[in-house]
């Protein structure tokens, strides 16, 4: 374990060093990433600006969901998304052997080595939006904050699972750069109050591919809009992450190194 902590610490240090060397590129990339991540809040703002609303939800309540979603995306993009592109590239080139001969776990190494500092802007942007939304809402008590934190971490776990599933898919579906789109399309369901979706979709987004945990559930906890579904979804979230890890490791074992 200590080995991986050192590895991760070194990767973060390198990422910061690279960002400070290419400062202009880092700033530009961060701004672009923030811009493309505030699209959903912008859409919500325009909908409410037109005098419409999601029934039972105020503008700031919906923005709170979307800010939590943005923060969760930011954290997962920093920590996990790099493994998708890196795996895709290594499988296409047939160069994953270079990683496999290293005296560390392949998945752990790639997660650490692809730490992406650019996405810190998304976390920051999401946090600002979160602060603005919360400023217009009743102050949550300590218990609600604990609930929020617990569910937020579970959401990050779901994102780990999603990213590993994407990376695992790239072993079989070689060089398909649109694989992330496939998963990201489903993620959109986590960005809105779940009540607007049909019962069957709610069941899928809560228990099968628990994307509701990425944005909606943690925000609902802060807003005291909890229901039993949230707590039942804890187990599927853990299972989902486990499936992602297990499938990725299985695909590494199946890897034949022929490229594509």
């Amino acid at each position, binding site marked *: 374990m200590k080995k991986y902590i050192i590895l991760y610490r070194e990767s973060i240090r390198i990422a910061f060093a690279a960002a400070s060397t290419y400062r202009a590129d880092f700033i530009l990339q961060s701004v672009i990433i923030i811009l*493309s991540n505030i699209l959903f809040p*912008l859409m919500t703002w325009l909908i409410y*600006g*037109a005098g419409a*609303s999601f029934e039972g939800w105020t503008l700031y309540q919906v923005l709170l969901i979307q800010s939590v979603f943005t923060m969760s995306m930011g954290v997962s993009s920093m920590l996990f998304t790099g493994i998708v592109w890196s795996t895709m590239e290594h499988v296409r080139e047939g160069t994953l052997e270079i990683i496999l001969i290293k005296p560390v776990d392949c998945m752990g190494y790639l997660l650490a080595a692809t730490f992406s500092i650019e996405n810190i802007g998304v976390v920051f942007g999401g946090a600002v939006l979160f602060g603005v939304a919360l400023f217009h809402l009743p102050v949550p008590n300590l218990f609600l904050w604990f609930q929020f934190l617990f569910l937020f971490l579970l959401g990050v776990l779901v994102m780990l699972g999603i990213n590993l599933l994407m990376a695992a898919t790239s072993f079989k579906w070689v060089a398909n750069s*649109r*694989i992330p*789109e496939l998963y990201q*399309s489903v993620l959109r369901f986590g960005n809105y109050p779940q009540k*607007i979706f049909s019962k069957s979709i709610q069941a899928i987004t809560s228990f099968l591919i628990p994307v509701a945990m990425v944005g909606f559930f943690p925000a609902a906890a802060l807003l005291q809009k909890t229901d039993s579904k949230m707590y039942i979804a804890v187990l599927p979230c853990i299972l989902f992450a486990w499936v992602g890890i297990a499938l990725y490791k299985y695909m590494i074992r199946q890897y034949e190194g022929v490229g594509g």
Partner: protein
Amino acid sequence: MKKVLHYYNVAKEVALVTYKEWSAYRTHSMISIIVGPVYFLVQYFIWTAVYGGKETLNGMELQQMLRYFGASALIGYLTMDFADWNLQMLVRTGKFVTFQLRPVHHRFFALSQKLGHRVLGLLVEFIPCFFIFHFIFHINMVPEYIGWTVLSVLLAFFMNFYVNYCIGLTAFWLVQSSGIRSVFQALASVFSGGLIPLVFFPKYMQKLLFFLPFQYILYVPSRVFSGSYSLAGISMKIWQIVLLQGVAVVITMLLSEILYRKSLKKFTAAGG
């Protein structure tokens, strides 16, 4: 006439080769068959909830709104373009020099490539998604005026290409133009009307959008599809907005030619 025939043959051959080349990666495009309907499903639930008991929002009824999103998804498959990426890659690597040796304008070559690529898009993205939207989601995906819609989509096809080509040309000055590309794409995704119809934007922004290229890429053909057009409180007849779109395309094409000529003076063929 001989010259026209020559251009036709060049376009046909380049388009055919591009079509064959991308057919090998057709599953890339086929991902749209899943992604498109999933995105549409999200929009369906969002707007059904937003309308609630309301008849209209900003002059659009729920069915019109759903048709708008269905049409914009389908039109996106026909007009999708990455000429900017191709061009900046050629400039950055110095490979653009090979096009200086060929007896064909690079922009025409790139346009022919796009034609072949989008024929593939028509077959593996547009047609399957059309049937899914029309027969599974029961959204009427037949345009109000087929002729005007085809013309408007064709103009949007050219508009998207010329605008992207201009963005790609910035690589002659910047070498690495990926930042400009990303900023432009982020702006286009908002101001072309793909995220939300432009009538939801503040009035001053709607007025400004008449002078920017974005609405002519997606919003205009999507509204022509549904048979009515309005923006910034200005309603236009279909032929009027298609004419305006045509004028915008011609201006952008001329701009791309001016930029192209200036770009060549900057070209060193050394890559970067």
